[in-house]
């Protein structure tokens, strides 16, 4: 399970730099060829973007337009920066 973040609200990785946004050629997976869907935990939500934590507790900005309302604590499956599936795990 992803640990619940505590204390200060985390910020997403700085995707403003080209390097941070890169799909690195030497990474293990190509997101599109791997049909990748990364499970992430929603940390906070602002309008159509959620800050989400992945397995390594790295934070990402994720578009949530395609999955409807999500709340902190929910899990989303993310592909190419966009949530394609929402699973409500809290409660």
């Amino acid at each position: 399970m992803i640990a619940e973040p505590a204390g200060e609200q985390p910020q997403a990785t700085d995707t403003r730099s080209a390097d941070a946004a890169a799909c690195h050629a030497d990474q293990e997976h190509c997101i599109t060829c791997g049909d990748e869907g990364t499970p992430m935990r929603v940390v906070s939500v602002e309008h159509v973007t959620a800050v989400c934590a992945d397995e390594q507790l790295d934070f990402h900005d994720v578009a949530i337009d395609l999955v409807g309302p999500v709340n902190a604590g929910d899990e989303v499956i993310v592909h190419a920066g966009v949530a394609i599936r929402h699973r409500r795990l809290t409660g």
Partner: protein
Amino acid sequence: MKFVDEFRDAELGRALSTQILSELEPGRHYKVMEVCGGHTHSIYKYGIDDLLPPNVELVHGPGCPVCVIPMGRVDDGIAVARNDGVIFTCFGDMLRVPGSEYTLLDAKAQGADVRMVYSPLDALRIARENPGRQVVFFAIGFETTAPSTALTLKRAKAEGIQNFSCVCNHVTIVPPLRALLESPDLRLDGFIGPGHVCTVVGARPFQFIPADYGRPIVISGFEPLDILQSVLMILRQLRAGRCEVENQYTRVVPQEGNLRALEVMSEVFELRPHFEWRGLGFISQSALKLSPAYQEFDAEARFEVPNVRVADPKACQCGEVLKGVIKPWECKVFGTACTPEHAIGTCMVSPEGACAAYYNFGRYAREREAV
């Protein structure tokens, strides 16, 4: 992590392997195709082949978008990237796919402004930050990736961004599967279905496989136990004389797919009459182009592209690998002239390509066998 660690348990894997053995009919050879590059990668990475009996053969299908893109489309991308003032963006693996003469990485080395992005939304952000330059996204991928491009274009339109466009190479998975099933040189017993494509499109588009061709398909997750369980489910169907679409990946894949994603896709895209697939030739209605409402974002209309069909290198047998007719190591140039560092064929470029996955992981098992 929940939904990851449980699916990598070695003891459960061995138990599934034993159950698979118990479902086999004596003397029968089984050929099961995994459609998706992500499955191919997991199979080699986790040595799933080693947990299967020798008469259960996994055949690698055409589900890696980088692997199926023809050289002519790469040349089109390079031509767009070379325009003055253009910032050309694409996923990382696309950079190393060979065109007729160059790769996008070569074009970058020669001065073109080519940048890797993780998401088409990052390309749109670059367009916002560079209003004086044209930003182009080279869109590839199956139905898992197409919604992210569609969403990006929808946002671009809503924001009135005029310096953003896309070269659309999105493809759909059902037509090539039908083409493979029609192929006389390939006999398949069943399919491991693409889990995240089905998260978007649902299970219904795959009903034609049992209905028209009498083969079972099991929609599968990507962890080792997912794949082993999917093989088991296929074998159980075959043994029971059943033939249907089953969903092993119920923790993620809803039966109806993601309706909102499908709605956005149908607004932004429409089917191309035909599209060329590397190794498979032209397949009708197998790819997407921008719908009339989004023509303003079509980079192929905004820039001049050669649009010339280029034959694959003669030495390369990617076509046969993609159809599952030969194994990667049976290609004449595998591991010698064609390696991940110097790829001749597209299957050696992406880590999910059958040749690269086998080169990186599987060949060691074969070397051990040879010793």
